[in-house]
């Protein structure tokens, strides 16, 4: 529109979303090819199997000092604040948050937020998958209640809304929220700072006592 303030990226917003997407993808292709001084994308005749190639690359890359979690991690407290670490493999770690009985009792959870402090291993973007697990009806296994993929770029706190998951747990009579974090192989353990109290993951929940239903008399 003539009165709109002109600037390079404003024109994009006037396009229909699909046209906008196509325009951006065409721009990305052209930008990468021109920066690589390629007239067109190369036609690879016999690519190596991707898995074998990535394994070989991992082997060639100097592995960072394994940042396995120190063994003496203090056990998490109750009250839904400190996590218990269990079954952590090199790629993933599980945090168990136990909520105090009085919170899980006759309260309505208004909101609940998971706070995680990331300590990234180096520059760039590090993908992390955060899964909220809940016990299945038998209570023997866990099922994935929700999965969120994050791109972590720098150290610092990140928050995730876990309100719905906590409400459904309480609805099932459970008082334990299990969070699984999965990272790429070469990240080691994502929550390096977990053993320092000031950076331990925690869940902040806001609840309201359920007022007994008042019967409205007409």
């Amino acid at each position, binding site marked *: 529109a003539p009165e709109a*303030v*002109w*600037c*390079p*990226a*404003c024109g*994009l*917003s006037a396009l229909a979303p699909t046209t906008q997407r196509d325009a*951006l*993808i065409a*721009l*990305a*292709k052209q*930008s*990468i090819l021109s*920066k*690589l001084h*390629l007239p067109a*994308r*190369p*036609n*690879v*005749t*016999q*690519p190596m199997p*991707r898995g074998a*190639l*990535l394994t070989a*690359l991992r082997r060639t890359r100097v592995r960072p000092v394994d940042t396995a979690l120190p063994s003496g991690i203090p056990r998490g407290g109750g009250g839904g604040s400190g996590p218990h670490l269990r079954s952590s493999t090199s790629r993933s770690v599980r945090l168990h948050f136990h909520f105090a009985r009085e919170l899980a009792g006759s309260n309505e959870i208004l909101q609940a937020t998971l706070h995680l402090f990331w300590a990234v291993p180096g*520059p*760039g*973007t590090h993908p992390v998958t955060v899964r909220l697990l809940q016990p299945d009806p038998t209570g023997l296994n866990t099922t994935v209640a929700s999965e969120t993929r994050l*791109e972590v*770029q720098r150290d610092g706190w990140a928050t995730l809304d876990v309100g719905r998951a906590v409400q459904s747990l309480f609805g099932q009579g459970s008082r334990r929220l299990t969070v699984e974090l999965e990272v790429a192989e070469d990240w080691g353990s994502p929550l390096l700072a977990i053993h320092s109290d000031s950076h331990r993951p925690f869940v902040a929940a806001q609840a309201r006592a359920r007022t007994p239903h008042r019967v409205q008399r007409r």
Partner: protein
Amino acid sequence: SIDCSGDSRMCCRKEFFVDFKEIGWEDWIIQPEGYHMNYCAGLCPLHMAGIPGLAASFHTAVLNLIKANNADAAVDSCCVPTQRRPLSLLYYDRDSNIVKTDIPDMIVDACGCT
């Protein structure tokens, strides 16, 4: 800097991820899986001018300049990248060699008003 969300009209950073598999490039680009082609968009009204990353001192200087030279003489400022980083690519070139290249300033991390 601000990431664009919903209908924010002020200068902000729009995230846009190009998945190489979706565009059929995953056979020749080995790593990474995609390219964060973020870009800057939004309005830079005068009072926002000169705030790349909210540099207060520069902001004040610009405001004084505008007052000194009466506002309507000042040109519009624009929403541009203020922080960028390289895109590291591992790919097959035309001779099927595996090449690793870092292309500078390809990923926009932050936007601000000129």
